[in-house]
């Protein structure tokens, strides 16, 4: 069954023009498009010069292969570190520390042993205290 207003409504709907897009739509679209366009352009330049980039990388790799046996960078690095005054000082300090811990005695016990015992005891005390606090907190909540 056709309702009486149907034809009128149909005509009105058919004759309805497009809505006007808000003025900010075009600038927004063009901002995104320009950003994408720049990316596409950079990509196209990269593709355009791909053989040049490939050849440069290959040349660099060949140069490294030739230069590495001549200069041996690993040996140079080790040599540099061995000559470093900071490393010398650090080594001397470690040596002094080892001598003190091994030779100094308190109550007939070497200092090294005593330090290790105190550190182990402190660690165990911390663990015990933390688990006790946690246990008490759980018990209080329940």
């Amino acid at each position, binding site marked *: 069954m056709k*309702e009486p207003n149907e034809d009128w*409504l149909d005509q*009105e709907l058919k004759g309805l023009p*497009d*809505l006007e897009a808000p003025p900010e*739509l075009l600038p927004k*679209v063009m901002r995104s498009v*320009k950003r994408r366009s*720049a990316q*596409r352009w950079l990509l196209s330049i990269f593709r355009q010069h791909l053989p040049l980039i490939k050849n440069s990388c290959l040349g660099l790799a060949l140069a490294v292969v030739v230069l590495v046996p001549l200069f041996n960078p690993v040996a140079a690095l080790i040599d540099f570190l061995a000559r470093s005054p900071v490393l010398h000082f650090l080594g001397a300090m470690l040596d002094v520390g080892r001598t003190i811990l091994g030779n100094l005695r308190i109550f007939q016990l070497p200092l090294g042993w005593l330090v290790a015992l105190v550190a182990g005891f402190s660690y165990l005390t911390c663990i015990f205290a933390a688990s006790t606090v946690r246990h008490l907190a759980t018990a209080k909540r329940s």
Partner: protein
Amino acid sequence: MVNAAPLPLIGIDDQDTSGLDARMAEVQEFETFVRNYQNMVFSVAARIVGNPIDAQDIAQEVFIKAYERFDELKESGTVGGWLKTVATNLSINHLNRYRARWRFFSEEQTEFEIPTFTPPTDDRRELLDLAIQKLPDAQRVPLVLFHFQDLSYDEIAEKLGISLAKVKTDIHRGRESLRKILVKTS
């Protein structure tokens, strides 16, 4: 003796400059394209989602998709149809994604209260557009697809994933609501 032809003196910089010019020309061409079609795309989205702010985001997305295929589109004779289809699909996806009360996928019927609003204009066409926006999603979307996108009942049912009977009922109810809104408002 064969004379060697002189080699063209085109360096990398020249190629880049011409590439840059081509890019600028393409962007300008696309700007004209957006100017020509922005009202159409915005209308499709706004009438489906019933909200101009969301419609603007959808229109922007449509044009970005168009830019990605601009080389094909500018030579195609069906640009308008392509833009309408993409705008329609994105608008429906938008409704599905963001509206928790979207009822298309359930066959349940909800009672719709005819809203009363004070029209900001006396223009009948503007009034009709506002009335379309006031319709509930389940009535507005099939009605817009039927009247503005010229889709058949079958195509609408397929697009929205609902039964043919529901499409017919929703369009009928939409028209009825539209008529009531217009009568009430005028």
